[in-house]
């Protein structure tokens, strides 16, 4: 019985952190947010040098053969540094493709995703909740409609699409009939796209039931990784709030000695720490194929959203007016947490799924 990260995991996480601290300073975050694509690609390249892209892929596909827990602790560091890149997109797609076992088509895609030859865009939004005017359908092997919030849609060579039916379709992102429209969110460190498909040929991976499993796995991994990303961002916001409170003086003393400020920081820590454990637990359950994994991931995703609102606001409040400015850059994390709250299912919708999973909704 050991509920903790292994030495290997800790040292892997430390290398990712060290790399990102060098490679993705606040200046780089600013550059990325200002639209500097080169800056974002440099971070991606540095991460690729560590081989993280294939963390969850088997050795046979060129991956590291590790699990979701490993992906989670990498993603936490990515969120911690507010780093750009398609790490989570690759992990999501690899998790989906692994449902097909070693079938040649799926394995071929996976190998290409791991190597970076195929850079995936991930289109899950229409599986989670269809907003006005969106929606997708497959007619005679061709995809029609539009998908919102495609992760990494801008850099994608291929889009991996969860169809409402539960199938997984793959479309060449450069094919005629594919149009990509950038969506600008408050979080400019990550890129989302709307993609329109005007009767574009789609490869649907064989085996309907397997594809349903693939899409479910993709959704689960997407949710847990976005929760882990938010966790990293929350951790850094708390640390920075404490550090700021020990520097900044008001009324002749550091504000970190005021009880109101201390208690705000204590409340952040008290909510953050159990969230971390819940995310780890959910990842481990997923890796073990435990029955509880689905529920744990839904709970982790929705809980991260709630803790995130509280910490993003409270850490900003500890910074006073300075937290509101661009000078300290705290808002990049604030916004990243705000976007993660809504991605891949807002907390209310995710809790409804958790109720359904437990048989607590009759209809």
């Amino acid at each position, binding site marked *: 019985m050991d509920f903790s990260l292994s030495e290997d995991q800790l040292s892997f996480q430390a290398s990712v952190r060290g790399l990102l601290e060098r490679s993705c300073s606040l200046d780089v975050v600013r550059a990325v947010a200002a639209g500097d694509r080169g800056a974002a690609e440099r971070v991606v390249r540095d991460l690729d040098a560590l081989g993280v892209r294939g963390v969850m892929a088997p050795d046979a596909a060129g991956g590291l053969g590790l699990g979701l827990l490993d992906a989670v602790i990498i993603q936490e560091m990515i969120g911690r540094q507010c780093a750009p890149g398609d790490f989570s997109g690759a992990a999501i797609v690899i998790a989906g493709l692994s449902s097909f076992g070693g079938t040649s088509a799926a394995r071929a895609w996976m190998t290409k995703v791991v190597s970076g030859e195929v850079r995936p865009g991930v289109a899950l939004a229409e599986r989670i909740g269809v907003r006005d005017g969106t929606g997708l359908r497959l007619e005679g092997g061709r995809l029609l409609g539009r998908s919102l919030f495609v992760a990494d849609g801008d850099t994608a060579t291929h889009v991996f699409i969860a169809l409402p039916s539960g199938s997984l379709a793959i479309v060449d992102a450069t094919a005629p009939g594919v149009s990509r429209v950038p969506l600008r969110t408050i979080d400019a460190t990550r890129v989302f796209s709307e993609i329109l498909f005007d009767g574009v040929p789609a490869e649907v991976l064989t085996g309907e039931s397997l594809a349903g499993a693939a899409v479910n796995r993709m959704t689960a991994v997407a949710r847990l990784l976005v929760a882990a990303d938010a966790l990293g961002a929350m951790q850094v916001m708390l640390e920075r709030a404490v550090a700021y409170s020990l520097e900044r003086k008001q009324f002749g003393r550091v504000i970190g000695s005021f009880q109101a400020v201390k208690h705000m920081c204590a409340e952040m820590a008290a909510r953050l720490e159990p969230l971390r454990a819940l995310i780890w637990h959910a990842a481990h359950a997923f890796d073990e194929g435990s029955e509880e994994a689905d529920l744990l991931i839904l709970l982790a995703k929705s809980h991260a959203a709630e803790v995130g609102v509280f910490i993003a606001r409270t850490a900003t409040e500890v910074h006073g007016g300075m937290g509101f400015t661009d000078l300290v850059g705290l808002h990049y994390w604030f916004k990243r947490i705000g976007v993660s709250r809504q*991605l891949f299912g807002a907390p*209310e919708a995710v809790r409804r799924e958790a109720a359904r999973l437990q048989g607590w909704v009759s209809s």
Partner: protein
Amino acid sequence: MDLRLSPEHQAFRAHVASLLEGHSHLSPTAADRGLKHPKRLAWQSFLLQEGLAARTVPAAYGGRGEAPDILKSRIISEEFARTGLAPPLAGQGISMLVPTLLELGTEEQRQAYIGPTLRGEMVWCQGYSEPGSGSDLASLTTRAVVDGDDYVINGQKIWTSTAMQADMIFCLVRTEPDAPAHQGISYLLFSMKTPGIEIRPLVDMTGTANFNEVFFTDVRVPRRQIVGKPGEGWKVANATLTHERGMLGDPSASRARLMRVAEIMQRETVDGRSLMEDPVFRDRLIALQARVFAMQANGLRVMSAQLKGESPGMAGLIIKLEGCELNHEIARLAIDAMGELGILYDDSPHLRDDGDWQQKYMYDLGLIIGGGTAQIQKNIISERGLGMPREPKSAKA
């Protein structure tokens, strides 16, 4: 209790309504950009002339010299809201400096500044906050040293809005470095064109420079530009701050904001079902509606007290804390109800309401934490409203 208007006030409302409706073609629109756009200045002239702006400012200084009547002021602002016409100018010069000069300025200062300020020809900014003294004004360090007939100012201000557009600044500086903290400050008026002033826009989390930093290097200001006596700046500023508090947390605006969220929830759908049919969001909406209506009733109570010349007491002290928080919560509900669409920003496709809700969510957070933080408001409520003691001085300080 009687919420009806007297015949006099009913007549006044009819008068204001007909004035505004009859001159709506003069009202500037969003397209008439710039604080001194000729159409804006002309509209302000018209409003001054008709007593719809600066109603109680004495005629000698460019106002209408009418007796204070909070109800008439309220009727005026309600009619502007109803007709959607451009409201009277309301920068910091008009809302904060003018009342201060009327109370504590010299006759010369009043003559020189009030008229042009009211007419919108002279724009002001406020120099209070400093990097080292956000909520603790008494600790400010910008210094003004007497040199002949001038003060020579060195230091830095922050959170200065409209500094780029301002002609003038009203500014707190430390003139008596040896006096106790609160007694060493003076209140100066000077031109933003004075040599030695540098302005740096301060981009905030909304992505806009709503505020600025202002740096002073050997800025020379004639000594007569002081309001009150040297060392009285704290008292003068507090008179001004009192005027500021009234500006924030307008409950009618909160109600309008809430109703906009209700409209969004009726309009937007997920999986073909309107958000209003989601009981979880609907419950949150109505819980917020109750808070909005409560703040509106609280506002009526404050106004009634003011009408009778009484102190509104606790009902007045809590407005800023509750009002800002409530607005922030309303924006948060709007964002949550819109889900993924609620995080869109700038000029993204699928953006709803011009991204206004994220803008408000962040800007209101700025109001909660800046310019007299929630923390300070709670200190004020507990000390002035509940009679609890001030934080004891630290033994180390």
